[in-house]
């Protein structure tokens, strides 16, 4: 199922009308936030860690060319086969070439958002390669032909009843809604596939330039079986995933699991620095690493928006976002969702296709407060909104309306009249009725205008307001 952020308004309406979805998302996000808060409390140096992580990402991305060269050089020294792809199409072609060359027919995948960016499963299916997601949540959404609805919990939008029905319908097993039984069904089916697969495809959480190695964090051990059992391992990473060295991984190992799932560390952390050594006999014969640009270098070109590439995909900003909590991930129409997603959508897909995305936010700032790498998301959203307006991607009516408002606001007398007049006009309406606002009033009650007008009302409020805390402080100082 292909979706696009251009239809986000429709998706939002559908999501808001789905009370089961809202209940599932609300429950899951609240649980995740609570678990996170409990663990953050145990790390009094949390704020320093956030600063440090931000600094490490800044250092790496400000010198990305140097780090990329060093990293790929070291990878080659370690026997890792490096591929470069400018865009999704090139990446898909390269992956298929490797598969053809190596006779790959069956693939197991561990969760990777970067491969979602490539629509890899669909592409492989079209080319006769069976590609199976092995993370439980991702396995469930693949059965539904959906994309994940959360960065770290792909099936967060589904309840156990939903999953029970999906397994019953798609796998032909008796209905059960017991999560443990559901897991056992998936485990039994996937274990066979792990042993049978020619290739394991994974993403990359962090790549260490100095060592020429990379790491993957996971909990289910599906990652272990994906990267460790098949004869070929292919990892796909965006060029922004680099950090200088293994020592600089330490703060991220604290920040990512706590922010994502409220764990001090994930159950498994795989450090991969090359294919199997003959003496051990374990691990893949070949490790391929595909470095993907796909728009990242153009994001890098803005000295501020560059920060959106710092994202470590923990999903904390989704959990805390009052909009995500209501609508879940599919409403955004793309693989990256929530507050960080709406900064990435117009940057990756362009101002025309992504023109609605930066507005799916209340700018409350909770995402910035929770972000483990201190990405100033609200600030970037304003900049992106500005960019969208300047690119003339907004509608004719909207542009005309704002031009009109701009003109009015720069003519004080007319402005005064315009804020006074509706209140007067309203008095002609019978009873306590308010004006109708097309497209707005259907779902919300529009209040009545104050008959005095805003300026008079504000002045009288200023005169009569009780002494506020702020004022008291001023008087004391």
């Amino acid at each position, binding site marked *: 199922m292909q979706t696009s952020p251009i239809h986000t308004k429709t998706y939002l309406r559908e999501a808001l009308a789905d009370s089961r979805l809202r209940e599932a998302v609300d429950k899951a996000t609240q649980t995740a936030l609570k678990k996170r808060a409990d663990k953050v409390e145990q790390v009094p140096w949390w704020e*320093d860690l956030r600063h440090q992580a931000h*600094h490490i990402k800044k250092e790496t991305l400000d010198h990305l060319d140097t780090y990329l060269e060093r990293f790929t050089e070291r990878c080659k020294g370690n026997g890792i086969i490096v591929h470069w792809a400018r865009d999704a199409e090139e990446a898909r072609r390269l992956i298929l070439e490797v598969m053809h060359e190596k006779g790959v027919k069956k693939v197991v995948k561990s969760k990777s958002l970067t491969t979602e960016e490539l629509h890899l499963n669909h592409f492989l299916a079209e080319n006769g390669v069976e590609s199976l997601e092995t993370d439980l949540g991702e396995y469930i959404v693949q059965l539904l032909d959906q994309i994940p609805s959360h960065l770290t919990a792909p099936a967060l939008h589904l309840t156990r009843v939903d999953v029970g029905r999906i397994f019953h319908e798609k796998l032909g097993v008796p209905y059960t809604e017991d999560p443990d039984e559901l897991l056992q069904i998936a485990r039994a089916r996937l274990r066979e596939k792990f042993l049978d697969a020619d290739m394991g495809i994974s993403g990359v959480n962090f790549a260490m330039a100095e060592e020429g190695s990379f790491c993957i964090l996971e909990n289910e051990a599906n990652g272990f*079986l994906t990267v460790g059992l098949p004869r070929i391992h292919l990892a796909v990473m965006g060029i922004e995933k680099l950090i200088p060295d293994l020592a600089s991984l330490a703060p991220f190992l604290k920040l990512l699991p706590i922010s994502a799932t409220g764990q001090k560390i994930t159950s498994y952390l795989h450090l991969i620095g090359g294919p*199997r050594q003959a003496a051990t006999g*374990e691990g893949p014969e070949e490790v391929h690493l595909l470095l993907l640009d796909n728009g990242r270098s153009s994001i890098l*070109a803005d000295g501020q928006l560059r920060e959106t590439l710092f994202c470590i995909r923990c999903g904390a900003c989704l959990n805390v976002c009052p909009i995500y909590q209501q609508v879940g991930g599919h409403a955004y129409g793309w693989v990256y969702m929530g507050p960080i997603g709406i900064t990435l959508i117009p940057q990756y897909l362009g101002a025309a296709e992504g023109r609605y995305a930066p507005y799916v936010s209340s700018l409350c700032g909770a995402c910035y407060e929770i972000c483990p790498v201190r990405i100033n998301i609200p600030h970037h959203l304003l900049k992106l909104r500005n960019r969208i307006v300047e690119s003339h991607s907004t509608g004719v009516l909207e542009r005309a309306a704002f031009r009109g408002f701009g003109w009015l606001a720069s003519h004080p007398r007319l402005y005064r009249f315009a804020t006074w007049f509706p209140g007067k006009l309203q008095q002609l309406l019978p009873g306590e009725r308010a004006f109708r606002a097309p497209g707005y009033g259907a779902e919300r009650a529009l209040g009545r205008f104050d008959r005095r007008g805003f300026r008079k009302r504000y002045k009288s409020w200023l005169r009569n307001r009780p002494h506020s805390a702020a004022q008291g402080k001023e008087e004391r100082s």
Partner: protein
Amino acid sequence: MSHAREAILARVRAALEHPSHLPEAPEGTAARIEAAVRAATPADVRGLATRFKRELETVSGECYVLSSSAAAADKLAELLQAAPAASLALDGDPLSRAAAAALPDGAVYDASALPPAERRSRLAETAAGVVTADFGLADTGSLVIRFTAGRSGWAGVLPETIYALLPSGRLLPTFQALAAQPDAAAHRNMVLITGPSRTADIEKILILGAHGPRRLVVLITME
């Protein structure tokens, strides 16, 4: 040199001509973290073992601190008596072999002695594994298993139950200490294991034993 490589590097270089406008970290950040971590680190091996045990138990792992390797072997036998395993794989490490030496023969085998293809399918059917960790990280209760010659790392993940031996001298306080090991460069492939495998993908309900072990028992031997 591929065209794509050159093209991407050229794009990155062009992008970096625009200077970064991002805030710097406050002065002393790294020093404050270091001091805080140091203050939270136990001073001796006994303290590290206690911390390791506590952390592992909070993630549903089991941990026993034992006085000697003989005591660890006894404990292993006792645990296997309480929860018999139809088959038991050893990772091939001498310490694992020693700990399992007194176990009744039959179902016990050395996974590292099998050719990889056979090893893989046999381990996937094996009930329990005995492995020896290269390190233990006290602040998270994590085992570090390097993929090294003559040893099976798969034996630590494919069976349902894992018994892991950890000599106390291999306890490190943190990941930083692991990254700083003098031989780190020679061991690039490794896995850190913290508790049994798990998932919370259905309604955020935690279930142990996803695609890996359901039970993880660590036997720390004080040296």
